[in-house]
């Protein structure tokens, strides 16, 4: 390509380029010789001006660019600073303010990709120079573009009906938006519904959650789909379409009034199946309601346990008693439905660590060993023991050990800190102490009480006489002599001695893990996971509820372990982000779409089948790209055998020039 192909912004003559090298305080300038970089840039063809400055993204920094555009007639801008993911938008806006098309701009990433990852100043500076040279060469070929505007469907899909999903859904619905709330369990409520009290205020979890659940049920703008899962999603921001699978409940949801008579008359006199909601600490019948406050207030049938399903010869007393409403339907099958939405909030929550994975703690093998979640049910008034703390052998514990960090802070299981265990362990210590007056030992590694009122709560629990031992229990084994007790062996690192403490009850503070199927959810919604398996936010500081997929937001523990207040705050934030999108009515997208140059196209159709979004059509001997459907991947551009497809912002010339730029010094 020759200089003749250059398109100057001012319409005539050669481009007038301004280069700005940012110090980013010392983030860049400590490793990259910014003055040298500026000098190198100054001598590149087309560069009219080159500056270095402390903080290009600051207001004064942006003002410099604007002034230079106006005063020196710059028509191309290159800023060498941080990642374009961070400030590309900032500088484009500044350039537009300066009166130039914002796409006459190229950003060079010399911080994340150079100064922060190298130590050798010479090598890092050489790399920065190469990258700046590439940008200068490339920007000469930029053309004026306009952002694409896409309308936003105001309906929102909320995936997961725990406290995060509930709060998001209510916020959106109160703002007048239609919400589809999808929950895979038979009731919304999530883990919070299982808790007894919440730390540090000791509010009753049910007392604060159930009103919100009822609101969800009653809200005209919310459509709750339980026993349902999103199996497929396609489209793009503002215009998604989700396919939802509904598992059979064997009850007609609209007909059931939640009288629960069918449960009473079931041919099973007593429950035989471990009750999921009580973690198996009690039994339920095959026709049941998950818990008294369940939403929807509708029973369901578990075909595994139901005689009718197993033999087809049940008396069906349930059907008899429901004759009037006729809500029971043994023939229900899995169904699918589709909804159209503009944005999605993912609030799929967490999975409690399975303590069986650490056999040295005896869970599942030694009767006195419980998980924290089980104890939540034990202390709960509506739990299997109606709030009495009774052990599996029927006795009340006199000595209780609580072991922190089970499945957290452990490279053999999860490296991360689960963030809530210290506090919920203190809460359980308090509750168990209150109910049994047992002697309680908290074995912790580090007591993490960073939160409003948390430290005060810890002091209160100490005052109540709970013994704090700094050291993780190494082993739990049955005490000699058939006492039924177990011995906790740990180094008390305060004392520097190993201690053996026999107790009646052990509570394992199990950590928070991503849901077992987080990987599937991630794929379905095309978002990413961090190393630990939690969903990745767009930016850890500045976009904590956004994802890299526009219009898909995160709320709650699916993003990282967090407590209820943080979950609710994040759920509100996710709802607000969705509302901002909806109320803008449209969204501006990168104009990086591809287009076919008609007179160059031979109609070979190579591109047509390659587009995953069916954006390429073929008509009258030529291919053409539907700009609305094009997402700008550029696959067709690379494949076009006659070079007749271009991609805005990523034209062949631009990339070839970048190659020349980075290689120019070789």
């Amino acid at each position: 390509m020759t200089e003749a192909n250059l398109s100057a912004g001012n319409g005539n003559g050669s481009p007038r380029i301004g280069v700005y090298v940012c110090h980013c305080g010392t983030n860049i300038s400590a490793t990259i010789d910014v003055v040298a970089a500026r000098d190198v840039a100054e001598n590149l063809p087309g560069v009219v001006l080159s500056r270095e400055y402390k903080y290009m993204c600051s207001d004064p920094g942006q003002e410099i660019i604007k002034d230079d555009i106006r005063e020196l007639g710059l028509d191309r801008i290159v800023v060498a600073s941080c990642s374009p993911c961070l400030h590309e938008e900032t500088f484009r806006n500044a350039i537009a303010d300066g009166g130039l098309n914002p796409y006459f701009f190229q950003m060079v990433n010399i911080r994340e990709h150079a100064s922060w990852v190298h130590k050798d100043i010479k090598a890092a500076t050489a790399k920065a120079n190469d990258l700046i040279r590439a940008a200068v060469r490339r920007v000469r070929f930029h053309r004026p573009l306009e952002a694409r505007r896409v309308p936003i469907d105001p309906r929102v899909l909320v995936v997961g009906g725990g406290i995060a999903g509930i709060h998001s859904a209510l916020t959106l619905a109160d703002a007048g938006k239609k919400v589809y709330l999808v929950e895979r369990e038979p009731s919304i409520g999530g883990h919070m519904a299982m808790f007894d009290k919440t730390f540090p205020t000791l509010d009753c979890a049910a007392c604060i959650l159930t009103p919100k659940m009822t609101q969800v049920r009653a809200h005209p703008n919310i459509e709750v789909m339980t026993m349902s899962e999103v199996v497929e999603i396609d489209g793009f921001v503002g215009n998604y379409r989700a396919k939802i699978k509904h598992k059979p409940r064997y009850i007609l949801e609209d007909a059931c009034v939640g009288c629960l008579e069918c449960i009473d008359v079931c041919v099973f006199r007593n429950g035989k199946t471990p009750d999921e909601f009580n973690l198996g600490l009690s039994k339920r019948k095959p026709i049941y309601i998950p818990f008294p406050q369940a939403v929807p207030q509708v029973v369901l049938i578990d075909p595994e346990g139901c005689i009718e399903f197993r033999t087809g010869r049940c008396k069906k007393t349930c059907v008899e008693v429901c004759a009037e409403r006729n809500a029971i339907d043994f023939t229900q099958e899995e169904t699918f439905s589709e909804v159209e939405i503009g944005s999605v909030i993912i609030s799929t929550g967490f999975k409690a660590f399975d303590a069986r994975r650490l056999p040295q703690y005896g869970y599942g093998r030694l009767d006195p060993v419980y998980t924290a979640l089980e104890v939540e049910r034990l202390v709960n008034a509506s739990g299997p023991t109606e709030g009495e703390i009774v052990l599996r052998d029927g006795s009340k514990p006199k000595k209780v050990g609580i072991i922190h960090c089970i499945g957290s802070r452990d490279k053999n299981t999860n490296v991360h800190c689960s963030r809530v265990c210290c506090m919920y362990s203190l809460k359980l210590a308090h509750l168990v102490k209150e109910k049994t007056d047992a002697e309680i030992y908290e074995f912790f590694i580090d007591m993490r009480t960073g939160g409003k009122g948390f430290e005060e709560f810890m002091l209160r629990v100490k005052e109540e006489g709970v013994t704090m031992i700094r050291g993780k229990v190494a082993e739990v084994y049955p005490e000699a002599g058939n006492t039924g007790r177990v011995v906790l062996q740990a180094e008390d690192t305060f004392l520097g001695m190993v201690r053996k403490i026999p107790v009646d009850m052990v509570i394992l503070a199990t950590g928070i893990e991503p849901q077992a199927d987080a990987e599937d959810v991630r794929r379905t919604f095309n978002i990413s996971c961090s190393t630990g398996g939690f969903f990745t936010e767009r930016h850890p500081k500045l976009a904590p509820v956004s994802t890299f997929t526009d219009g898909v937001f995160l709320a709650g523990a699916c993003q990282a372990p967090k407590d209820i207040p943080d979950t609710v705050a994040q759920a509100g934030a996710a709802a607000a982000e969705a509302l901002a999108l909806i109320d803008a009515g449209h969204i501006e997208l990168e104009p990086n779409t591809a287009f076919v140059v008609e007179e160059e196209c031979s109609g070979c159709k190579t591109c047509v089948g390659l587009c995953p979004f069916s954006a390429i059509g073929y008509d009258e001997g030529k291919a053409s790209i539907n700009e609305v459907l094009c997402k700008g991947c550029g696959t067709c551009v690379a494949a076009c055998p006659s070079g007749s497809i271009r991609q805005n912002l990523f034209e062949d010339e631009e990339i070839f020039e970048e190659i020349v730029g980075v290689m120019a010094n070789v």
Partner: protein
Amino acid sequence: MTAYDYYPGCSLKGTGKPYEESLLAVFEALDVGLDELDDWNCCGATAYMAVDEKKAVALASRNLALAEQSGKDLVAPCNACWLVLNKTSRYLDEDQDLNDLICSAIAGTCPSISGNGKGASFEFSGNVSVRHPLDVLYNDVGVEALENAVTNPLSGLRVAPYYGCQIVRPMSPFDDQHDPMTMDHLLAAAGCDVASDYPFKTRCCGASQMMTMPDVGIDLVSLLLEDAVSRDIDVIAVACPLCQFNLEGYQPRVSKRIKAETKIPILYFTQLLGLALGLDKKALGIKRSFVPVEPVLARRASDD
């Protein structure tokens, strides 16, 4: 008939003699061949590693090199030997520099392995796995074959399986690290009443300290035995000559230490399997126990 190379290790020729006797008898009864490795040397145990690492590796490597000549899997009944040989084989696999060093040393100094003459060279092919008898009996022979061969089930004999430390840690290629079960299953197949409540099946017995710091050793053994006494264990079954000697040899001192009469026979699991297979007690080395075994067996008979 499947056959293995057999690496007895020093103990099985001394204090662990009944282990060797019963092992050979049981394997023969189950039609599994064991061919003693020609001119094997000491594995080095834990002591050598504490003095000189490279030499410790070289020492164990010589045995692996010998075993590679037949290519059969190598059965090492002593836990310490089993671990040292396995660990060495892993080092050789993972550390190429070390592997080169050892191979060239073998080539240069051991004509009986690498052949005579100049340019003798040696390379590990990695074709030999080091196996424990528990592994072989459980995974190769199988519980079912054993069950079928049992003629004299040891019902009513309350046996605590004790695995010791070095066959489950740091590697546990054939069993669960925290709750190993292979011996439990084998003993159950022999009809034993397996004491699954015995909590210390992988706790270190302290054997390596018994000679050097007897007080410490006695402490560790006491813990293991005291618990067994409290649980009415008839016999503790072991899979390692060091554990056996340690748990058995000091019971009079333990009795004083815990202030309770301690007379629990410590039998190799192979001895128990041999009894169940109806083999001759003498051939199984039962008579070589310090703690008399007959009373326990007799009590079982009277319980029947």
